[in-house]
């Protein structure tokens, strides 16, 4: 039987123990081969260090020698009937594009905060939390790590919990969607079993908390039909439109409205995975025969059910995060198509406080509330309503310089 996999991204400042924790969980759940463990042991020894479980993930020479994660990677574990895919991401500020690449599709997050004297909650810890919330992650487990370096002190744990709570609520995490657990990833304290060294901690060990989260009911999803057109295949009489149903379902014989033009077309035939089907469901890629041709290759068009009035816009109210330099003129990519636009900052958002900031332009590695003006109509909806239609990326030349979500 196949298993539903929960994608869990790690978050947190560099050196607070993200890779080490995943390595530890891989070992504690026997999810990794002896050959890989032996290899990680050999590499640790060769570099003159004590065994580093993080080497099960950090596989580049530069990563192992520099003891840092450069790029994102994934590892799967199965535990008590639930399956997880952990996404390791770099914690360095200059590698934030790799962090965002890894974290963008996760369903929940594990935040690492080191309890060690001079570490604690740092700017990058908060920036990662801000980004997680922006990208739609609702639930977080905060691992207060390296408890061995503070003599397993309950006071230090509470100090970190108390220090982080106001920020969490500032960026919009509900109090009951955040769980705190004190751990020592390296020594496996509170990972798969409750640690005897922290008798004051009454909660469950980390892996059990993850199992609980994986069993929470998710919203059943929106029934509104939305199909994003990707392009065409074939030509002439054999022309078919390809696309992906991102919500609702699509039926043969149904009339749909195409946005932004508002034109109506009838679905004559539907193909899913190479076969003719009467219905296509959310998540399926389709090839469609329509009763008439649409101008161009259709890429970027969004189809709605005939009773939907459709949405289109030339001006978008959005929240953006700048990975690189974003000027007033830029391009946004939405539904697979790039559009020239101008971006006007309404107010900056300091990602380390979550609060508004009076900046004159969008700052690198910071966020902002913006108004985006376009020459042509595009089809977007608030992110809270549709994940797929509510998000976009910002480009300058061939570089991705930012991400954005549409405000409601």
């Amino acid at each position: 039987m196949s298993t539903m996999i929960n994608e869990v991204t790690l978050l947190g400042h560099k050196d607070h123990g993200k890779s080490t924790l995943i390595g530890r969980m891989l070992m504690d759940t026997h999810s990794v081969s002896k050959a890989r463990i032996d290899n990680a042991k050999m590499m640790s020894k060769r570099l003159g260090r004590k065994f580093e479980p993080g080497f099960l993930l950090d596989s580049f020479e530069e990563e192992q020698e520099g003891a840092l994660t450069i790029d994102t990677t994934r590892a799967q574990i199965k535990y008590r009937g639930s399956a997880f895919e952990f996404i390791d991401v770099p914690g360095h500020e200059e590698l934030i594009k790799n962090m965002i690449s890894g974290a963008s599709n996760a369903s929940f997050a594990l935040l690492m905060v080191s309890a060690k004297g001079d570490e604690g909650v740092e700017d990058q810890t908060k920036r990662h939390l801000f980004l997680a919330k922006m990208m739609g992650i609702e639930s977080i487990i905060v691992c207060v790590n390296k408890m061995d370096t503070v003599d397993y002190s309950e006071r230090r744990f509470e100090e970190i919990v108390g220090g982080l709570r106001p920020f969490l609520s500032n960026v919009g995490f509900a109090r009951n969607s955040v769980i705190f657990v004190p751990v020592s990833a390296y020594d496996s304290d509170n990972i798969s079993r409750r640690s005897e060294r922290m008798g004051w901690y009454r909660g469950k060990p980390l892996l059990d908390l993850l199992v609980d989260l994986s069993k929470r009911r998710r919203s059943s999803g929106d029934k509104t039909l939305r199909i994003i057109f990707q392009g065409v295949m074939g030509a002439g009489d054999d022309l078919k439109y390809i696309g992906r149903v991102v919500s609702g379902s699509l039926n043969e014989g149904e009339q749909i409205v195409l946005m932004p033009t508002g034109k109506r077309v009838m679905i004559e035939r539907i193909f899913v995975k190479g076969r003719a089907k009467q219905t296509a469901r959310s998540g399926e890629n389709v090839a469609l025969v329509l009763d008439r041709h649409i101008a161009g290759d259709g890429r970027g068009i969004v189809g709605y059910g005939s009773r939907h009035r459709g949405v289109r816009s030339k001006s978008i109210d959005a929240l953006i995060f700048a990975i690189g330099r974003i000027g007033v003129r830029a391009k946004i990519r939405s539904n697979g198509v790039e559009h020239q636009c101008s971006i006007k900052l309404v107010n900056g958002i300091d990602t380390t406080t979550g609060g508004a900031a009076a900046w004159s332009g969008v700052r690198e590695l910071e966020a902002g509330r913006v108004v985006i003006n376009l020459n042509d109509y595009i089809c977007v909806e608030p992110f809270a309503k549709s994940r797929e239609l509510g998000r976009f990326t910002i480009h300058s030349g061939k570089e991705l310089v930012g991400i954005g979500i549409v405000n409601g």
Partner: protein
Amino acid sequence: MIKQDINKLEEKSIFIIREAKTRFNNIAALWSMGKDSTAMLAIARNAFLGKIPFPVIHIDNGIDFPESYKFRDDLADRWGMEVIVAKSKIKPEISGYSCCGANKTVALKGVLKEYGFEALIVSIRRDEHAVRAKERYVSPRDKNFSWNYKDQPAEVWDSYSSKLDKRGHLRIHPLLDWNEIDIWSYIKRNRIPINPLYMSNNGYRYRSLGCTHCTVPIRSNAKSIDAIIRELETTKVEERSGREQDKEKAYIMEKLRSLGYM
């Protein structure tokens, strides 16, 4: 090894393969006649309703298994595929790591130059190797085929890179999310023809196929796809344990890949 939902995996692969075909004029796929690239071609047939709309490249160093050549010709015929055979010559004085680098990569460079492909579909999976786990779905290579793994483009949500250097190309990785066991579940469900070398013969079978010089079989009695799936459910041995080039020295896969190897 975790069995994932093959329907969900297939949908994402179809999306990625269609993105590649829609966004680039001139693309091709690499086919080693192994299980992964054969499954990928089956997915591409589903994505394009039975007809694969791009050529398929076999990098042939002349020392692949005889079973592989026959399998190639039979399936190419059956599925109506346009196969480009990129010949490379094995030099007896070069072996292992240098051999893969010198032969496969050089032959691939030749074929890309001749046909001018902008993007190549390559059927690597994250669970094969810790270095492959660091890959993007769409990954740029420069004109020397170098993989700049220290500075990969951002890949957010389902927005893939279009960073195409002059004379460089993009590697498209539609199977990145699949596990070895998922490939076999898919082959079984869709009744995909498979290279006979994967089945046990006298107590041995190939789990990962390279050429005759550097691939060794594993001990196994699995004579059917069901038996292979059962074997994978409990194994603790690495898939590429029979591939000599992976073991020579530290960081070998990273070096091979940064030079253009798959």
